[in-house]
């Protein structure tokens, strides 16, 4: 498993404890006392490291190669998932997956960014960076969900929109804009969950909903820390500093009143225990749908508008 720099002391200590345990078992020397001391030390170290994650540590977690993806969660959360392809206009964008499935005996539409866990998959999925046809595929499925009165679950996990010539030629801007506007008017509940990186417009195009949640170690941001550093200080190596100033962690977004909640992750990150993580997400979706399902369409839409209307910080001043 890919080890992150900040958690290496924990891993090294764990390895040492394992070694001593093995030694105790295989030889005459009794190291139980030493092991106990080290285990205490480990607990303190873990509390210290995982209890004080810095924004940059969370960025690393959000980008972790083994971090569970949309398809992982679909497998754990839903039954009978059927994926559907294509935007009916140009092609099929594999950076976004979409389909229908059952959640607690009820049909739902699920849409999410899909990145790969290795180079081959990442090339196929374009590293989870959608082209316009991806957003259009997503919108097609949202409209269908509306027709059949299915709630929509969106998983957000992208560095951002594909920065490329063809994406621009095929109308990246208008594809994203259309999604924002059309999601605003969907007559079914929409629950959005950031599971990894929420990168700028490419993330937002699946992100207008009645509830927005973030996994604890995911990020949501107007631009990547590297991009921000390059723009603000003309130095991409200042990404760490940018990750702090830009306020991109789940707790930051909660403070900024953008979120409906932070979903807890297992110690060390979602990749350490996908099942635990899926359970936490399941609880959240269940609660959200319970709150949203019985609202009239008018109330649903009015609440959605109120929610976004109130995001932002300004002073009213005097006329």
């Amino acid at each position, binding site marked *: 498993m890919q080890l992150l720099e900040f958690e290496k002391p924990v891993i090294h200590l764990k390895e040492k404890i394992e070694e001593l345990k093995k030694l105790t078992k295989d030889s005459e020397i009794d190291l139980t006392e030493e092991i106990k001391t080290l285990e205490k030390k480990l607990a303190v170290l873990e509390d210290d490291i995982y209890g004080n994650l810095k924004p940059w540590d969370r960025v690393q977690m959000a980008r972790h190669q083994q971090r569970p993806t949309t398809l992982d969660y679909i497998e754990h959360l839903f039954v009978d998932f059927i994926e559907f392809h294509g935007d009916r206009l140009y092609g099929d964008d594999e950076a976004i997956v979409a389909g229908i499935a059952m959640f607690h005996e009820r049909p739902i539409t699920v849409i999410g960014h899909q990145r790969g866990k290795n180079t081959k998959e990442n090339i196929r999925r374009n590293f989870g960076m959608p082209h316009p046809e991806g957003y259009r595929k997503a919108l097609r499925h949202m409209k269908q969900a509306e027709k059949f009165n299915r709630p929509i679950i969106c998983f957000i996990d992208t560095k951002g*929109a*594909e*920065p*490329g*010539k063809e*994406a*621009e*030629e*095929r*109308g*990246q*801007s*208008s594809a*994203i*804009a*259309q999604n*924002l*506007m*059309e999601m*605003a*008017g969907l007559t079914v509940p929409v629950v959005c969950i950031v599971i990894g990186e929420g990168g*700028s*417009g490419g993330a*937002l195009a699946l*992100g*207008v909903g009645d509830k927005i949640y973030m996994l604890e170690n995911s990020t*949501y*941001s*107007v*631009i990547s820390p590297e*991009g*921000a550093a390059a*723009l*603000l200080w003309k130095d991409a190596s200042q990404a760490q500093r940018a990750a702090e*100033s*830009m*306020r*991109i962690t789940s707790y*930051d*977004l909660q403070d*900024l009143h*953008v979120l409906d909640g932070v979903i807890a992750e297992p110690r060390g990150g979602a990749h350490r225990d996908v099942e635990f993580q899926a359970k936490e997400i399941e609880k959240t979706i269940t609660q959200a749908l319970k709150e949203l399902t019985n609202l009239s369409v008018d109330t649903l839409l009015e609440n*959605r*508008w109120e929610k*976004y*209307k109130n*995001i*932002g*910080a*300004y*002073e*009213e*001043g*005097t*006329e």
Partner: protein
Amino acid sequence: MLKDIFGRRKKHSSVSNEQTKNDIPEGLMKKCPSCNKIFYEKEMAKNMEVCPKCGFHHALSAWERIHSLFDADTFEEWDAHVQTSNPLDFPDYLEKIEKDREKTKLSEAVVTGKGMMDNRPVAFSVMDSRFRMGSMGSVVGEKIARAIERAKDEDLPFVIFTASGGARMQEGVLSLMQMSKTSIAIKRFSKAGGLMISVMTHPTTGGVSASFASLGDYNFAEPEALIGFAGRRIIEQTTREKLPDDFQTAEFLLKHGHIDRVVHRHDMKKLLSKIINMHGKSEVSS
């Protein structure tokens, strides 16, 4: 040609660039960056900042734009009292805002309000690229969303002129969320039957091009305006692709089917007025 004269002088004498620049009297003459011709500022202003020689569209300030579109003395400004704050405690942010306020005499990067266009009331939002590169933070999003809501409530057509480098970095994710806020406002306005016309001017990029700028019932652009989502430099660096010269220009967007028309500034008011007339509710109902 004037250009040649300047060139020759540079070659054969010790006149510095700075001095050459000073040969164009400040506040009296203006050089067109496209054809390098020099014109009287007054002449340029009279021509709506369009180069009389080559037709290049220079940036218009928000108020110059408003004057070019609406009948004299008929406009009122809305929500000028909505003021920028510093939600992320970003270093030097408010100082930069203050500087741009002094420079532009604007409170933020957008002016919203209502005016008469050929005797018809129209709600408007006009962005100004001189203010923090026209970037969208909370105030810009809020003012535009309010203008759209008010257009809905007062049953007015809504016209927006965009000029923006995109979302404002210093307000982080709150800037990003203004894309949603304005788009939802447009959805509500549209559902109520409202007419929205978007005119993209140089430059309209990033989060602004990927939200309200692209959401008009009719989307226009000024000639040669730069319009796109991702920056040209970023695309070149990431993909190492050779990009065509006209990449992300108004004409490029027209060719690829993303805007309805490229409109010369001199024809703008007439076109908008005509379209608004053709959507006039009183005519339809009578």
